């Protein structure tokens, strides 16, 4: 099984060949994976320039695709994202890799659990957190057809199979008072394992902004919501709260804690340490019930 990242490079090369409006801006990362192309610009290790060049291309009518590690595409050039894309009123597709702790062994500098939260603080972003390489294909193709500001967050973590449906997909129905467990992107595999023998409704969500408020309302029959997000815990809590502002509800928001986590090792070790493996998710839900 190919990784999301490998799959993306193939899709990107194909888009460059087939769509004359597409241009790509890289900052070294990923360049060796791509065939040379006159509209693939490698600006060197200059991430502020990477975003601004994408903005310039968009102002001239191109559809820029920008790619780097999550901390270097979202956090380092944050003002360029806010002003050169948002304030200039142009779009781009930002495709990150590395996610929250894929490069756990690289330490804090290569971990970006806060990327979705900070990007979601800016207006007009569509944020995709695919859970499988085949889902990347779907959201990337859709993003290429628009001029929107789109973030696609790739990860080495992947569910066993893609989810076919789009949007907020209810995969399993519990009883009327059962908690609604919403698994975001690559957390689905562990969430399904954690809830296999629990009375729970389990839904899958791979597009977290705009947040599907109406679908959440429709799916929730009891009062309890459990959010399982693969990035900063609570990133979508305010969205859930707004969706249910007129309904009594309880919310358990699982994710990566807001802490300087000074550990290396493997992604799976970080997942377990943050309580995002099946055992951790299960224990949290049991304590919440």
């Amino acid at each position: 099984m190919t990784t999301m990242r490998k799959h993306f490079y193939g899709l990107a090369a194909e888009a460059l060949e087939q769509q004359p409006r597409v241009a790509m801006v890289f900052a070294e990362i990923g360049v060796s994976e791509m065939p040379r192309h006159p509209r693939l610009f490698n600006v060197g290790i200059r991430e502020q320039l990477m975003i601004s060049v994408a903005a310039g291309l968009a102002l001239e009518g191109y559809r820029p695709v920008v790619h780097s590690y999550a901390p270097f595409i979202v956090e380092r050039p944050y003002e360029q994202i806010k002003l050169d894309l948002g304030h200039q009123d142009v779009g781009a597709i930002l495709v990150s890799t590395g996610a929250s702790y894929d490069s756990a062994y690289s330490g804090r500098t290569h971990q970006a659990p806060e990327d979705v939260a900070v990007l979601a603080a800016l207006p007009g972003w569509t944020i995709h957190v695919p859970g499988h390489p085949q889902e990347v294909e779907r959201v990337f193709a859709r993003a290429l057809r628009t001029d929107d500001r789109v973030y696609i967050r790739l990860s080495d973590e992947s569910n066993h199979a893609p989810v076919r449906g789009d949007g907020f997909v209810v995969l399993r129905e519990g009883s009327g008072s059962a908690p609604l467990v919403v698994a975001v992107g690559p957390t689905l595999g562990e969430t399904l394992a954690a809830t296999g023998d629990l009375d729970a409704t389990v839904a899958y969500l791979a597009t977290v902004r705009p947040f599907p408020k109406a679908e959440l309302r429709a799916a929730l029959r009891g009062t309890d919501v459990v959010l399982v997000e693969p990035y900063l815990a609570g990133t979508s809590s305010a969205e859930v709260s707004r969706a249910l502002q007129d309904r009594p509800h309880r919310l358990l928001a699982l994710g990566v804690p807001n802490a300087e986590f000074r550990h290396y090792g493997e992604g799976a070790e970080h997942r377990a340490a943050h309580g995002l493996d099946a055992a951790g998710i299960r224990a949290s839900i049991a304590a919440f019930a």
Partner: protein
Amino acid sequence: MAIAMQLGYDDLPGLLTLQTGDEKHDWSALSTLDVLWVLYDRVLSPDDRFLLSKGHGPTAYYAVLAAKGFIPVEDLAGFGTFDSRLGYHPDRVLVPGVEISSGSLGHGLPIAVGRALALDARGSAGHIYCLVGDAELEEGSNWEAVQYAGRVGLGRLTVVVIDNHSSTQHWPGGISRRFEVEGWSAERIDGRDHDAIERALITRHDDWPHVVVADIQP
């Protein structure tokens, strides 16, 4: 257009007064006035783009845009007010003829590089002009753009640095040298001399970008 005839350079002080309500104009705005006028009066062709990166003190810019018919002269009086399109930093979404929104320093030149690459990619005849300030060059993001544009030989990019000597730490050895090291051609001119400005701005090289340092003595 709201005006039938185009206004001239001598009308600019009046257009500035409309905005400030005052005969004494903002010094930073005036430092750009001559370069802006020559650009719009003598240099820019329809395929060209002008990006004002140094969005501070934009009254000179608005005055030139009004003189050239991009915005109605009547709009100038509302400068900076709630319902005005004309703020203390220009917004491209609000103001016709404004190619980029600016205000935060160090964004225009990097965007200009992207636009130049885009014109290259589609084989346009257009040229990109970008105006920055000498103090604005303190922002590191500019140097990412200067390095890259020089190394890839972006011949369709010209940067005008308005050097009104406002950088607190100064540029020992001069601004031009820093661009030249990165592969740009550079020249320093009197930022009030219209013929010198015109000559410098129409200087183009196929294979490397050009910087014009316009000296403005306070």
